[in-house]
């Protein structure tokens, strides 16, 4: 028991250093570092949430995506004086409780929510498909937000290429993606609030 705890803590703090470095570069606008951060983060989230949502494997990938979107939209609330683990875990917990509350099965949770800061202790890169398709929600966005996202996501175009394809300016494409991501997160939140 003691050995596994030490092992996972060491692994967690190594991951903390690595992820924090990538994230901080991302906050300064380094897209490549940020991309790498998000990839690693999603693997950690998948393992973290997968273990806690043991009974609902279908929900895990949805929640991973929701957490990623929330962390992206709220990344300005991270300050370097704080362990990244604490920030990530607080958001993951918030989103998980939200999900469980909307399913009203909070009491059926296997793990107590007051957990140690172990969100980076494990990772799982094996993504299953998300059940709630974000692409469906995407269709409800206005064109000036939807089109840049569709072009960059589906066609895999760069921002410059998406600008040519849509006839929008590059900064309009960037603004469209930015606002679209905020709107997607808001739609997920209100969708749960009303259901």
């Amino acid at each position, binding site marked *: 028991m003691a050995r596994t705890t030490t092992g996972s803590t060491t692994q967690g703090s190594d991951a903390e250093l690595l992820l924090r470095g990538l994230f901080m570069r*991302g*906050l*300064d*606008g*380094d*897209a*490549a570092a*940020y*991309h790498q951060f*998000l*990839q690693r983060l*999603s693997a950690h989230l998948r393992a973290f949430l997968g273990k806690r949502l043991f009974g609902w494997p279908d929900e895990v*990938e949805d929640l*991973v*995506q929701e957490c*990623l*979107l*929330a962390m*992206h*939209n*709220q*990344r*300005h*609330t*991270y*300050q370097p004086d*704080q*362990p990244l683990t*604490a*920030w*990530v*875990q*607080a*958001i993951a*917990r*918030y989103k998980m409780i939200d999900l469980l509350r909307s399913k009203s099965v909070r009491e059926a949770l296997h793990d107590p929510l007051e957990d140690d800061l172990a969100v980076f202790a494990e990772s799982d890169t094996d*993504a299953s*498909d*998300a059940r709630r*398709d*974000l*692409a469906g929600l*995407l269709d409800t966005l206005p064109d000036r937000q939807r089109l840049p*996202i569709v072009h*960059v*996501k*589906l066609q*895999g175009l760069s*921002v410059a290429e998406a600008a040519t394809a849509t006839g929008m300016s590059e900064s309009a494409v*960037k603004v469209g*993606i*930015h606002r679209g*991501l905020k709107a997607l*997160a*808001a739609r997920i*939140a*209100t969708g749960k*609030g009303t259901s």
Partner: protein
Amino acid sequence: MKTDDLVALLATDAAPVPRRAASRRIAVALLLSLPVAALIMQVEFGVRRDLVQVMFWPMFWVKVLVPSSIAVAGFVVLQRLARPGVAVRAGWLGLLVPVLLLWGLAMVSYLLAPETRRADMVWGQTWRTCVFNIATISIPIFVAAMLALKGLAPTRPALAGACAGALAGAAAAAVYAFHCIELAAPFLAIWYVAGMAVPMLVGALVGPRLLRW
């Protein structure tokens, strides 16, 4: 959508992010709303005419500084509540200690006063309007603080709403002190504190609804 696609999409939106956004947003909200609150005080109630003389009385400064220090602590606590995974810790003391000191002062001055004066110290001349007036002045500050919180990530929305309310109420009480004629500590300990508690309760009630993200 595959998670890898989402990750790639999010990475395209990697514009540099401003630092200390929580403190900055809340500070901007306060800077914009405090003048509005002061304007409401001036237009609805008016600054007391003998303000210059009153400034030499210690109780006037108690009346201004106790709510002010609660407002400062409220700011510190709120910007922590607005950031996921940040503990508030000693910040709570900053909210609590000024109230406790005021209550202590009120108790002492009430017990030391002759019995005939005591009722006056508690009710003053304006107890009927004080709570309502403070709550009214707090409205613009409360709205601004809640709007600032909307763009942040409070994971405990009821608490964050309550703190926004306490901050708004305390700042409003400090503003209202420039109109109010009461100078007895027991009056402040009851009615000023009640005036701050009203927006706090409202914040606790509406927080979970309004601060979802």
